[in-house]
């Protein structure tokens, strides 16, 4: 059977079932999947309530649509099972020939990405729109790298990361509004406040792991948002804060007037809106690179190694005399600090913030970036942010189908590469020659 021959090395199974029983198995499997799909689609798709003529609710049946969807599931599952040659997919985590190639490409990818990012504003054809998109992507790269410290390195599942983004944004907005402080003073303060909140969150969850930790952090993110909405006298409530000062170029404001003492005037340039956009672009690039640099540096230090050891096995860490409390709190604090920096940047870029920008979906997107990129991999996170955020933008035309496309893409990636785009881990230190360690076979640290 050609299908079985194409299954790659994993399909070379001694107990490979005979072709006829293979087909039977596949059919059975596809039927089960269809039954599950039917159970979901009947209530979700086939039954629909509309506002009836009399103003009441009227039930409408859409059996045809539901049947089509079930048929698609049946065919898709059948093809999948026949193609992979077994019930369900065996994900390729074993180091195949392309793992190596991917790794080599990865080594070149980082400098290439950096070079492109550095010269992007100067590339012909790159306009205001592309730069704005670049700023957006870089913001998420930075958030991804920040969360990567907590989730990827320390293994603490944080579903409320957006709270620190919010703390950073509101810190800057409120400090500017009430005290008239400038962006450059507020930026470190925003990071410090966010780190403080990170420690505050860290204390109660010190003994929690996995799902319990996820639930508490999720609640924490919501609490911050709800407080921002309801403390209207201080935060502006749902209306948010407007007129947040734009950043200046070390004291020189960007102004279209172009007089003495503005950026354009000082450098003798024609005043242009793009100056500020380019400045914002390099600002977020610098902040993101700072996040990356600090993370890479720390990973080679005892603290960073302790984070990774904590992710692998907390009990072993205790038995080795590692201070688990400070290790966890430092991960929360550092991750939160970079979230706070990104938040302050967000506030100054938008000049307007409201609690609506800090909903759970933001936390989910940032987490998706980290997981898709491969927990712990810096370059993976950057690529995932580019693909996810850039993709959202490119497929804007698809309207409501966009979410479906992305849900599907994420499922496919996680099925094919369950450890993320870059599932390999480079040792932080080595005696003699460095060798990468692929993420195959071994379960995630218990």
């Amino acid at each position, binding site marked *: 059977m050609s299908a079985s021959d194409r299954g790659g090395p994993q399909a070379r199974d001694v107990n490979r079932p005979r072709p006829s029983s293979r087909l039977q198995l596949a059919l059975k499997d596809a039927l089960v999947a269809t039954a599950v799909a039917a159970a979901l689609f009947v209530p979700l798709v086939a039954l629909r309530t509309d506002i009836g003529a009399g103003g009441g609710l009227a039930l409408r049946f859409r059996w045809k649509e539901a049947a089509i969807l079930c048929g698609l599931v049946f065919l898709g599952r059948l093809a999948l099972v026949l193609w992979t040659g077994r019930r369900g997919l065996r994900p390729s985590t074993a180091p195949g020939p392309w793992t190596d190639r991917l790794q080599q490409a990865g080594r070149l990818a980082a400098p290439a990405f950096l070079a492109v990012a550095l010269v992007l504003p100067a590339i012909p054809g790159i306009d205001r729109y592309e730069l704005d998109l670049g700023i957006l992507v870089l913001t998420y790269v930075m958030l991804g790298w920040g969360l990567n410290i907590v989730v990827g390195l320390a293994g603490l599942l944080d579903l409320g990361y957006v709270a620190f983004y919010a703390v950073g944004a509101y810190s800057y907005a409120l400090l500017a509004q009430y005290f008239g402080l400038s962006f450059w003073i507020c930026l470190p303060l925003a990071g410090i406040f966010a780190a403080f909140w990170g420690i505050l969150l860290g204390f109660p969850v010190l003994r929690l792991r996995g799902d319990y930790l996820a639930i508490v952090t999720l609640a924490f993110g919501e609490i911050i948002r709800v407080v921002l909405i309801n403390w209207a006298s201080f935060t502006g409530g749902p209306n948010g804060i407007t007129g947040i000062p734009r950043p200046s170029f070390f004291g020189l404001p960007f102004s279209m007037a172009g007089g003495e003492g503005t950026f354009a005037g000082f450098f003798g340039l024609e005043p242009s809106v793009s100056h500020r956009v380019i400045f914002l672009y390099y600002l977020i690039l610098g902040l993101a690179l700072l996040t990356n640099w600090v993370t890479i540096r720390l990973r080679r230090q005892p603290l960073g190694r302790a984070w990774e050891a904590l992710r692998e096995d907390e009990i*072993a860490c*205790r038995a080795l005399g590692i201070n688990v409390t400070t290790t966890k709190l430092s991960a929360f604090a550092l991750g939160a600090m970079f979230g706070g920096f990104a938040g302050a940047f967000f506030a100054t870029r938008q000049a307007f913030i409201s609690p609506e920008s800090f909903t759970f979906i933001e936390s989910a997107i940032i987490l998706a970036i980290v997981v898709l990129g491969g927990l712990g991999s810096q370059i993976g996170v950057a690529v995932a942010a580019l693909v996810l955020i850039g993709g959202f933008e490119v497929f804007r035309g698809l309207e409501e189908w966009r979410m479906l496309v992305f849900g599907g893409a994420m499922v496919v990636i996680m099925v094919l590469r369950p450890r993320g785009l870059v599932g390999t881990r480079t040792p932080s230190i*080595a005696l003699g020659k460095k060798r990468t360690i692929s993420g195959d076979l071994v*379960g995630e640290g218990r």
Partner: protein
Amino acid sequence: MTPLLEVDRVSAGYGAVQALAEVSLHVMPGEIVTLIGANGAGKSTLLMTICGDPKPRMGRILLGGEDITGEATHLTMRRGLAQSPEGRRIFPRMSVYENLLMGAEALVKGDPKPQLEQVFTLFPRLKERLAQRGGTLSGGEQQMLAIGRALMSKPKLLLLDEPSLGLAPLVVRQIFGAIRALNAETGLTVLLVEQNANQALRLAHRGYVLVNGRITMEGEGLALLARPEIRDAYLGGGHG
């Protein structure tokens, strides 16, 4: 002479579970002491309690004559105590070298190189596999790594929790041989917890028997091994 470790009527447990009831034992400097007990007897709990996690509910723990009862674990581990925990618990995605370095975290000062050399002399196999991922080692190699990792902190007292668990007899002999050599050559004091009574008691100077969280017997290793109760309870079922 003061014992290196003294556990004085210690009770401990988890929530409503009482795992240890007034356990007393001591380990003199340079000794190998074996604690044997069936599954669930409280052996691992005892070793973890010595390290301060969980904290004892009653009783005292002295290390080198100093009271360490209730001290934070990471501080206790800086006092020259090291543990190779049950099930080895090496860091599976980290390299052998990184695993070893994690053991040196509790070294307050100094260079890990001499310890590294000591570990390599004891287990040359680890040196060959330095860049390999911990999780891809064989069971015996993982146990060597767990012991090596514990040795990296230059301990005076080494706590070993069931190092023979799930290993082939030949490998067990190799590991126990290394423990004996370590004790003979460097004078390292060892508290060994085992279900494998035969080999573990042969290795030990003295032994204790733990049943349902209580010490029921103690004595010299070989003397304990000769007792009929021990033979019935711990050597039945085809052990050697």
